[in-house]
C-alpha cells in the first residue's frame, strides 16, 4: 500500500527519530532491547543510504545526473521544505551511516551504559546529521544543525567528568554563538531574497538588485562564518580538539562527521549560490576559504605534532581534514574538489577510528578516572557498577599486534601515505593542483605534503609511545569484541575505499562536475510537483 521507495529519502531522518522516541517509552534498564533496536535502526539506515547511493551513482534512467527530491507536506518548492538527495548529500549520508554504525557497535562494549539514554541521543544525532545533509532549505538546515548540536552536547557530556564538562562549556558557548550567526545569516538572506529554499535563492542571486547585493553578501558571509565555526576553521576551531578528546570514544568518533557536515554545507552553498551563473557574486568568498583552509591545515598540523595524547591528535586530525577540503574548495577547481571529496571520506573514517583506538590504548592510563568517579558519588549508582560485565572485554592474545596494525593503518590514512585511501585522496588532490598550476595551487600542494609529513611524525611519536613503549609485564590491552569489530569495520572501510578507489573517484569526479553546474540541482528542486 505504501510506496516505500518514494519515501526512502526521508528514512534516514525519520527512522532514527521514531526508534529513539520509542526508546524513551521503554524502561531505562532494558538495555539489550535498546541496543538491538538502535543497531537495527543503524543497519536500516545504512541500507537506505546504500540504496540512495547506488541510485545516484548510476544516475537517472535517461542518463545524466539528477537529484531525488522529496516534498514534505506535498508543498511545492520553494514554499514547502524539500529534501534533496543528490550525489553529494547521498555520499555524506552513506558516510554518516557507516561511521555511526561503527561508533554504535563500539559503544555497545560499555559506553552505552555510562549515562542514561545513550541510544536515544545517539540516534537523534544521526537524525540531525542526516537531516542537515539532506535538506534543501536554509532554515530547515538550521533546525537540523540544532538537532545535531543538541544531541552532540548530550553526547559530548555523556559520562560526565571534569574534562568533558570543562570542554563542554566552551563547546556549547561557541556553538550557541555560531547558531546565532547562522540565524542572522539566514534571516538576512531571507530579508533580501524573500525565500529560504537554497535552489530558489540560487536562481535569484544573479538578478539581485545592486542595493541588495551588499546585504546578501553580508548575509552569506555571516552564514559562512557560522558554518566555518562548525568546520573548526582557524581561528574559530580551537574548541574542537579539547571537546572531541574529552568526549567518550564513540561520541568522538561520530563527531568526526559533525565538522564534515559544516564542510558539506560550505561546499553545497558556495557552489550552488556562487557558481558560474551567479553574476556579480561568482566565486564569492573562495579566497577566504582557501586562506582559512590553509591556516587550518597548518594549525592542525602543528597541533597534531605537539599533541601528547592520541585523542587530541585525532582532534587535530579532524581539523586538518576540514582545512584540506576547505582549501581545496577555495582553489575553485572541480578536479581538486573531487579529490578533496574523496579525501574527506577517507580522513573522516580514519579520524573516527583513531578516536576509538585512542580510547583503547589510553585505557588504564587515564589519570582522570579518579576524578571522574568522584562525580558519581551521589544517590545514583556509578554507571559502570551495576553491570555484571564491568570490564570492556577480554584479553585478546594478539591484542597488541592487532591494535598496532590498526594504529598503523590509521596513521597511514591520516598522514595520507600509501597505499590506503588517504593517499589516493591526497594524490588526486595534488595531481589536480599541479594541473591548476597557479601560485595558490602550488602553495596548497606544498602545504598538503608538509602536513602529511607532520602528521606522520606526530602520530609515529604517539604510536611508539602508546604501543611500543610498554613494559614487558604491563597488563595486556583489554579490548571488547565489539570494540575490535568497530575498529576493524572502520579500517575495513578504509581498505575497501582504497581497493575500489577507482570507482569512488569516478563518483567524486561526477559529483564535482554536478556541483560545478548547479542548474541540475535547481531544476530538480524547483521543477514541478507538490501542491
Amino acid at each position, binding site marked *: 500500500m*505504501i510506496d516505500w521507495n518514494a519515501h526512502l529519502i526521508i528514512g534516514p531522518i*525519520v527512522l532514527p527519530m*521514531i526508534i*529513539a*522516541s*520509542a526508546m*524513551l*517509552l521503554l524502561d531505562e534498564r532494558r538495555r539489550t532491547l535498546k541496543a538491538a533496536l538502535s543497531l537495527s535502526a543503524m543497519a536500516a539506515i545504512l541500507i537506505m543510504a546504500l540504496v540512495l547511493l547506488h541510485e545516484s551513482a548510476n544516475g537517472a534512467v535517461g542518463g545524466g545526473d539528477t537529484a531525488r527530491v*522529496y516534498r*514534505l*507536506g506535498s508543498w511545492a518548492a520553494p*514554499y514547502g*521544505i524539500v529534501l534533496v538527495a543528490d550525489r553529494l548529500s547521498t555520499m555524506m549520508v552513506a558516510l554518516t551511516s557507516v561511521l555511526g554504525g561503527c561508533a554504535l557497535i563500539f559503544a555497545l562494549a560499555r559506553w552505552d551504559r555510562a549515562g*542514561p*539514554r545513550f541510544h536515544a541521543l545517539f540516534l537523534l544525532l544521526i*537524525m540531525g546529521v542526516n537531516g542537515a545533509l539532506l535538506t534543501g532549505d536554509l*532554515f*530547515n538546515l538550521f*533546525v537540523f544543525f*540544532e*538537532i545535531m548540536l*543538541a*544531541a552532540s*552536547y*548530550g553526547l559530548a*557530556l555523556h559520562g560526565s567528568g571534569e574534562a568533558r564538562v570543562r570542554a563542554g562549556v566552551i563547546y556549547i558557548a*561557541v556553538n550557541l554563538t*555560531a547558531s546565532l550567526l547562522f540565524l542572522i545569516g539566514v534571516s538576512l538572506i*531571507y530579508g533580501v531574497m*524573500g525565500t*529560504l*529554499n537554497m535552489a530558489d535563492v540560487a536562481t535569484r542571486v544573479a538578478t539581485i538588485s545592486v542595493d*541588495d547585493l551588499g*546585504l546578501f553578501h*553580508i548575509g552569506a*558571509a*555571516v552564514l559562512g*562564518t557560522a558554518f566555518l565555526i562548525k568546520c573548526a576553521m582557524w*581561528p*574559530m576551531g*580551537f574548541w574542537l580538539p579539547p571537546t572531541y578528546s574529552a568526549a567518550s570514544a564513540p561520541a568522538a568518533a561520530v563527531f568526526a562527521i559533525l565538522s564534515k557536515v559544516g564542510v558539506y554545507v560550505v561546499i553545497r552553498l558556495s557552489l550552488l549560490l556562487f557558481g558560474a551563473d551567479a553574476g556579480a557574486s561568482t566565486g564569492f568568498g573562495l579566497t*577566504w576559504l582557501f586562506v582559512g583552509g590553509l591556516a587550518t591545515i597548518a594549525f592542525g598540523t602543528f597541533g597534531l*605534532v*605537539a599533541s601528547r595524547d592520541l585523542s587530541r591528535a585525532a582532534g587535530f586530525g579532524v581539523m586538518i581534514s576540514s582545512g584540506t577540503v576547505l582549501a581545496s574548495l577555495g582553489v575553485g577547481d572541480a578536479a581538486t574538489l573531487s579529490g578533496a571529496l574523496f579525501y574527506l571520506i577517507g580522513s573522516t573514517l580514519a579520524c573516527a577510528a583513531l578516536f576509538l583506538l585512542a580510547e583503547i590504548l589510553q585505557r588504564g592510563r587515564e589519570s582522570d578516572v579518579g576524578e571522574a568517579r*568522584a562525580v558519581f558519588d*551521589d*544517590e*545514583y549508582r556509578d554507571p559502570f557498577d551495576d553491570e555484571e560485565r564491568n570490564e570492556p572485554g577480554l584479553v585478546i592474545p594478539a591484542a597488541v599486534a592487532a591494535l598496532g596494525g590498526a594504529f598503523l593503518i590509521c596513521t*597511514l590514512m591520516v598522514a595520507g*601515505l*600509501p597505499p590506503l585511501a588517504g*593517499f589516493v585522496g591526497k*594524490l588526486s588532490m*595534488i*595531481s589536480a593542483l599541479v594541473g591548476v598550476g597557479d601560485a595558490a595551487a602550488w602553495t596548497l600542494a606544498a602545504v598538503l605534503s608538509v602536513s602529511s*609529513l607532520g602528521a*606522520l611524525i606526530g602520530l*609515529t611519536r604517539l604510536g611508539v609511545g602508546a604501543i611500543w613503549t610498554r613494559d*614487558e609485564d604491563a597488563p595486556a590491552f583489554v579490548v571488547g569484541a565489539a570494540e575490535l569489530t568497530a575498529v576493524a569495520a572502520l579500517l575495513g572501510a578504509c581498505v575497501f575505499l582504497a581497493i575500489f578507489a577507482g570507482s569512488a573517484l569516478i563518483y567524486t569526479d561526477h559529483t564535482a562536475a554536478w556541483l560545478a553546474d548547479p542548474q541540475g540541482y535547481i531544476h530538480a528542486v524547483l521543477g514541478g510537483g507538490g*501542491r
Partner: protein
Amino acid sequence: MSISFLLVVILVLPFLGAIVASGLPRDARTSAAILSWVVALVSLGCLAALWPMFQDGETLRYEIPWLPSLGVNLVLRLDGLSWLFSALILGIGALVVLYARYYMSPKDPVPRFFSFLLAFMGAMQGVVLSGNLIQLVVFWELTSLFSFLLIGYWHQNPAAREGSRMALTVTAMGGIALLVGMILIGRIVGSYDLDVVLASREAIQTSPLYLPALILLLLGAMTKSAQFPFHFWLPRAMAAPTPVSAYLHSATMVKAGIFLLIRFWPVLAGSESWYLIVGGMGLATLLLGAWCAIFQHDLKGLLAYSTISHLGLIVLLLGLGSPLACIAAIFHTVNHATFKASLFMAAGIIDREAGTRDMRKLSGLFRFMPFTATLAMVAAAAMAGVPLLNGFLSKEMFLAEAVASAHTHGLNMLLPALATLASAFSVLYSLRFIHATFFGPPPTELDRIPHEPPAWMRRPVEVLVALCLVVGIFPAVTVGPFLKSAAVSVLGFDLPYYSLALWHGFNVPLVLSLIALAGGVGLYVVFGKRINANPRGGPWGWKRLNGGWLFERTMTGLFKGSEAMVRLLGATRQQPQLRAIVLVALLAGGLAAIGAGLVIRPIMPTLTLSNWAFAGLWLVGASCAVAAAWQAKYHRLAAVVLMGGAGLASCLSFVWLSAPDLAVTQLLVEVVTTVLLLLGLRWLPKRLETIRLPQAMEKRSRRRRRIDLIIAAAVGASLAAISYAVMTRPSIEGISRFFVEHAYKDAGGRNIVNVILVDFRAFDTFGEITVLGIVGLTIFALLRRFRPADDTLSNPSQQSVQDASDRDHETRSEGDTLKETMLIPRVVMRWIFPFIILLAVHLFLRGHDLPGGGFAAGVALSIAFILQYMASGARWVEERLAIRPIFWIGAGLVIAALSGIGSWLFGYPFLTSWFQYADLPILGRVPLASAVLFDLGVVVLVVGATVLTLVALAHQSLRKPKQRDNEEGELS
C-alpha cells in the same frame, strides 16, 4: 594463463606469505621460516622462469586498473634491470630467511618478524616491478613502513624505537617528496606510465618543471639511499636485528634509491643540475661515509658507514652521467649487495657468539671460529677491492670512470685523487674490521666462549662469499648476461663497449687501485692503534656536524616549536575563542560590505504619539539590556529581572508589529526562563564586589574590557545598520505570498503563522521539538551526575534563618514559617491550576485560527505544573501526580512522527496535512485538520521537556540533604 601472470605471483606471494605468517602462533619459529623460505624460493623460481625473455632486452607488462581517472593503474613491468634487482631481493631474501631462522631467539615473536620481512620483500618487489610512477611511490612508502617495523622489531629497546622512527621520518619525507616529483613528471609527460615516461626524455629535460621534479625525485632517492646529508638514519637503524641489516641495509632498501636513479637515469641524467647534485652528493657521501667508517667501534656501525660510502660511490657513478659509469654503477650495486650482506651476517654471527659487537672487546676470534673468520676475510677483501674478488672489478671500473671523466668537466680534476683516497679508506676500515676482530690476542672481556655457529647459519654466508669469488674470477660468464640485460634496459641496445675481465692490462686505474691498497694498509699500520683507542667511536673533530644529532635537535625543535605555535596561534580559554569568532564574523561581514557596498536609504520618521510610545518602550528595553549587562557580574538577581524587562520590551514590540503569536510565545518562554535561571542561581556562588584583583591583573583586565566594549559596540552598530537597511527597503516578492493565499484555502487555517508551523513548514517544527526533547534528555543525564559545589551544599541562608527562628519558639515547629508564608500563595496557585489548563486547551484548539498553538499551550501547561511545584514543593506534587516527563517526551515525538507518517498511507509525502469541515450533530460544522494531531505531539513533548528541565533542576535541592548526611556519616 599468460606468462605475465607470473609477475603477479612474484609480487603477491610475499604479501600472502606475510599474512599467513602473521597468523602463526608466537613460537612457530621454524614453520614461519620454512614458509618464508618457500615463498622466496618459489618467487625466485618464477623469476628464473621468466629469465629467457630478458636476454633480448624485452619488457613484460601486466596491467590491473586501479584509479583509471587519475591514470594510476597497477602496472607490473619487468625488464632486465628490474629482473636483476628482483633476483637480488629474492635471492638475498632467501639467504637472510635461512640465516634469521638461526639468528632470532625463540623468545621473540619470530613469526611476526618473518611476516614483516616477507611484507618488506613484497614491497621491494613492488618497487622494482612498478610500471607506473605512482605505484612505485606506493611501494616505496611501503618499504619505509615495513623497514620501520623491522628496525623497531625489538621495541623494548629505546635505541630501536628511536632508530626506527628516524628511519621512517627521513625516508617517508623522501617518499612524499618523491610523490610530488612523480606527479610533476606525470604532469610534464601527461602520463604516469613508466614506458611513456622513459620515452619522453626530451620533454622532461626541456620542461620548466624539470628542476623541481628532479630535486624532489632526488630527495626521495637520496634519503632512501642514505646519501649525505640524509645518511644519518642508517647507522641508527643498526639497532635492528642483524638479518634486517643484512637484508635492508646492504642489499635491498638502500638500493631502492639507487634503483630509482638508475631507472630514471635515461630521462633525467645528463643535465648540468643532475651532474652537480647527484655527483656532488655521491662524492661527499663516498668520502664522508668512508671517513666515518674508519672510526666506528661497533662492527655493524662500521658496516653501516661503509655502506653509506659505497652507496655514495654508486651515486657518484650515476652522477657522472656517462653510460659506462652507469653500467659500473649497476655492477657495483650487485657486488656490494653480495659482500655487504655476507659481512653483516658475519657480524651477526660474531655478535651472537661473542655477545658483543664492540671491536675494542673483540680480538683473536680466529682461533675460535676459523671458518667464519675466513668467510668474513674474503668478504672484507671484496669490500676493500682486492683483486680476484668482485669488489675489485667494479672498483676498477669506478676508478677508470673517475680518470676518464677527469677531462670532461672542470670540477672533475680532483676526482681520481678523491676516488683513490676513498678506496684507501675503504681498505683501511676493511682491514680494521678483520684485524681487530679475528687477530691479536684472545679476547678477555667476553662473557662466553665463542664457537662456530650452527652450520646452517653459516651457509648463507658461504653462498654469498662464493659468489664474490666466482664473480670476481669469472665475471663475464657469471654476471655478464645479467648485467648486459640490465644495461640494455637502461641504456638501450647501443651499449658502449665494456669488458668484464679480471685483467685489463696495466693501466691507470690499476695503479690507482694498487696505491689505494697500499695506502690503506699503510694508514692502518700507522694509525690503527690510535683509531682503536679513540673513545667515542667517531672521527676526530666530529661533534656538532653529526646528522643524527642535528636530526634529533630538529625533531625536538619541531615538537617544541609546534607547541609554541599552538599556544601562539590557538587558544584554550573561552574568552579569546569567542572574541575571535565575533571578530571573524565582523570581519567577514565587513569585507562583504566593502566588496559589494552597503546601501542604506533612510526614511523620514513619522512622529505620532504611538510611535513615541514605541520609542519609549525601547528606551526602557534598551536600558534594561544595558543595565543587565552591567549588573550581571555582581547582582545576578537584578540581571535576571532586567533581562525580563528587555524580554518584555521585545514581546510588546511583537504586539506592536503585528505578531501576536510571537508575543504570546515569547512571554511564556520568558516566564519559564526566569524560573529556570532562578533555579540555577541557587547553585552559583555569591559574587562580591569587594574582592579586588591584583594591580597588574586589574590593568590587564581593564584593557581587555575596553577592547570587548569596542567589539560589542561594533557588533551592535553593524547589526543596527544592517537591520535598518533591510527594514527600509521595499518588501521582496517572496514565498510569503503563497502562504497568505493558501493558508485558508489549502490548509484550513486562518492563523498563517500557525499554518506555516504545522503545515507549510511543519518539518521545521518537527525538528524543533526534537531539539527540545534532546535537550530534556541531556539535562536529565547531566543532572543525574550533578554534584553541587561545596559552598552551595548547605541550605540557603534564608531557610536556615527561618528554620532556626522556628526552632527557637516553643510554640512553633520547624517549617511553620514556610507553611504560613505559603498559605495564601498555595491557595491561589492551586486553584488557578485548572484555569491554566483551560487556557492551554484554548490556545491549543484555536491555534490554527487565532494566536496560540501547540507550543504556547505546552508551555502554559508546564507553567501550571511549575506553579504547583513552587507552591507546595516537589515531594508534595509528585506524591499526587505521576509526572513522567521522559515518557511524555517520547510520546510527544512518537505522536508527531506518526502523524507525519500517516500521510504515507494515502500515498503522500511525510507530514502532508488533510483538513475537512465535518457536520456533527448538535455541534454543527467543525473544522478537522490532521495538523492538530501533529500539534498535539508538540504539546505533549513541550510539557514533558519543559517540566523535565525545571523539575530535574529542582530535584537537586532534594538530593542535597541526603548527600550531606552521607558526608557527616563518613566523618563520624
